[in-house]
């Protein structure tokens, strides 16, 4: 009986980083079902291709660093899927791939492996693509007229104005908030199906992959600002309903903001972080140049996350004044 040396804790909790990423991936795949039914297999192809591009670039980056980390936790796939789900269906295929490359090679690679990136890679990728090709990112196809789209080729389809573009121009979108629940209004691939996003959010909270307080404070802050500083001339309730349901705010509150790596690690810090990110989303929507400012708000909130942790520790008197470098 030759006995091997092992590290002590014989049993470990069954939820590991890999299982957390698998839960997120499962939720994202769930979100793909509705668009695939409506538009054919193009959204699925787009998601898989983006995920593959992210995975390959992550493995390449690790090979250059001569690190045999391999691709055990599918976090690049999650980043790829999130990017693909926030793109319009008729976007050319190289758009999400460029976003994926930027996400992995610039936002994640230089800062080290999975747990070290200060910014959410998916948000950075989408922000880069939005700033560089705004026209392509915001040209959504009209869900009624378009049925099945070519799998790989770029397709020119009749585009329609999405509700948050209408909101941006200060008018009242003609679609009723109740109809927006079903998600058949022009918008990004995965973020329009509001009910499915809410279901995925609940799933992630129950599996404790994501922390619920970040999303709760995010939506509360966004609703608060939407109610008291409505962008369109209507009652507070309708303004809140329009702001929350339109655009990628709900999707971003479940997937982008709750990424544990780039959020603060203390519970109190997370509440501040969620509220700040919610407020920044509304500021971006009102004063920003693009109709969807969620990704930029997430990036700024990520930059402030370490400060919020230090604030919490200083409040508890645990000595966290900044130090000489």
């Amino acid at each position, binding site marked *: 009986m030759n006995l091997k040396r092992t590290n002590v804790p014989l049993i470990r909790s069954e939820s590991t980083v890999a299982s957390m990423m698998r839960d997120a991936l499962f939720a994202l795949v769930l979100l793909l079902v509705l668009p695939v039914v409506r538009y054919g297999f193009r959204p699925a192809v787009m998601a898989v291709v983006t995920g593959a591009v992210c995975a390959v670039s992550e493995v390449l980056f690790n090979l250059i660093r001569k690190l045999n980390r391999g691709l055990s936790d599918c976090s690049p796939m999650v980043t790829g899927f999130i990017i693909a789900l926030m793109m319009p269906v008729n976007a050319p295929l190289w758009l999400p791939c460029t976003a994926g490359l930027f996400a992995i090679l610039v936002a994640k690679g230089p800062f080290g*492996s999975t747990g070290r990136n200060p910014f959410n890679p998916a948000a950075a990728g989408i922000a880069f693509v939005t700033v560089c090709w705004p026209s392509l990112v915001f040209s959504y196809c009209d869900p009624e007229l378009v049925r099945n789209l070519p799998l790989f080729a770029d397709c020119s389809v009749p585009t329609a104005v999405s509700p948050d573009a209408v909101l941006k121009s200060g008018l009242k979108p003609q679609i009723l908030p109740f109809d927006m629940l079903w998600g058949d209004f022009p918008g990004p691939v995965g973020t329009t199906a509001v009910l499915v996003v809410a279901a995925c959010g609940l799933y992630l909270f129950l599996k404790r992959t994501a922390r619920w307080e970040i999303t709760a404070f995010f939506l509360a802050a966004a609703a608060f600002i939407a109610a008291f500083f409505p962008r369109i001339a209507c009652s507070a309730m309708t303004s809140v309903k329009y702001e929350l349901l339109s655009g990628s705010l709900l999707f971003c509150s479940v997937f982008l903001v709750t990424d544990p790596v780039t959020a603060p690690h203390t519970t109190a810090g997370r509440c501040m972080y969620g509220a700040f990110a919610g407020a920044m989303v509304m500021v971006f929507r009102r*004063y920003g*140049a693009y109709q969807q400012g969620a990704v930029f708000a997430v990036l700024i909130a990520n930059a402030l996350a370490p400060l919020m942790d230090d604030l919490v520790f200083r409040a508890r008197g645990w000595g966290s004044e900044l130090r000489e470098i």
Partner: protein
Amino acid sequence: MNDFLQVLMTALAALTVENALFSGGIGFGKMLRAARRPRQIRMHSLLVAWFSLISILLGSVLNPVIQENEVLQFMRPALYALFTAAAYLLFAFLVKAFLPKFHIKYGELLAPAAINTVVLAMPYVQKAFKLSPFQAVGYALGTGAAFYLGSLILAGAALHCKDEECPKAFAGLPSLLIYIGILSLAFAGFTGAKLF
């Protein structure tokens, strides 16, 4: 009351929408230098706010004069530089003479805070946005606050980018520069294009 509101609004605008520092990419070198000595960040940003206040008020006085004359427009940068140098020399002399304790403690902060791209960009900002004196004061204070926030963020990020988890080639300054790049990308969402 209206003037105070104007000051506040432009200060907020300087922090978010027209943030010359982040989206314009001005003054990141100085923020890096400030981030290296975290204990003096607060005083450093106060001084930056103070000197940008002087320089923006200077700009609002000088710009109409420069506007008419063609030759003066060519000499605009030289004029701004000379006036900023005069402001720095005067202030440094006064501090050295009357506040020796302050001079010993924050003496070497005066030069980097007075002479940097942020302070010298202020007259251009005043010309580009046609700010009234009260708005100019607001903008200068907003820029000082943005400098303070930026230095705090970079101080935390510098610590984060230095440890051994980062790849060897990217450890230290390169990953910090990429961090600044992504931060500037985040603020580019406000204007979506060049500031001026």
